[in-house]
């Protein structure tokens, strides 16, 4: 797998390629985070 890190943006994986998000992908990611429903209980045992 190849990796690339240029900024502190989250990494995404497409098949075996790992790279940082593009501007468009990062904007979509932030929008998704903002609109995400309240998380259900997930505390580890």
């Amino acid at each position: 797998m190849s990796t690339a890190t240029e900024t502190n943006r989250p990494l995404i994986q497409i098949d075996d390629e790992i790279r940082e998000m593009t501007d468009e992908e990062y904007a979509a990611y932030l929008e998704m985070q903002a609109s995400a429903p309240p998380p259900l209980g997930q505390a580890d045992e």
Partner: protein
Amino acid sequence: MTYPVFASGDVLNASDMNAVGLWLVKTQTIGSGVSSVTVTGAFSAEYDNYKITVSGGSASTSTNLALQLGSKTSGYRTGLLYHSWANTSLAVGSTTGSSMVYAGNALTNGLYANIDVNSPFLSTNTFVSGQWNSPNDAGVSQMQTNDTTSYTAFTLLISGATITGGTIRVYGYRN
């Protein structure tokens, strides 16, 4: 021979092989510290229906695994009927979801998904069912794309966390 039990040296007849119901389409190893994983070339005309499993690995924080098909980022009909382990029944749903939110679990002690995808490549509505199984609650998750788009890829999204390691496997149900 008596299918599906084979003995060493048996001839694999076409009738036996054509009776095999589940075929491995693709295996994808998850990298380190990623917030989403896209698997391309998962769906094709070869099969109408598929199973996706995720196992192994870990999440930086326990959260949900969400599923998107192709480039579709809105308009999902999605719902989860679940219960706490102490038996309280609950439900959540949306007709305008950005993904199948509760397609699986990304926990600090392991990743989990067991998803059935019905007709993703066909030009019909795609129907998806999955399971939610967290330390606090569990349930059955459903999704419809509410469109007739033909999809070949899917993405697993991790909300507010990253995942490392683990394996995604895609199987096709023989037509």
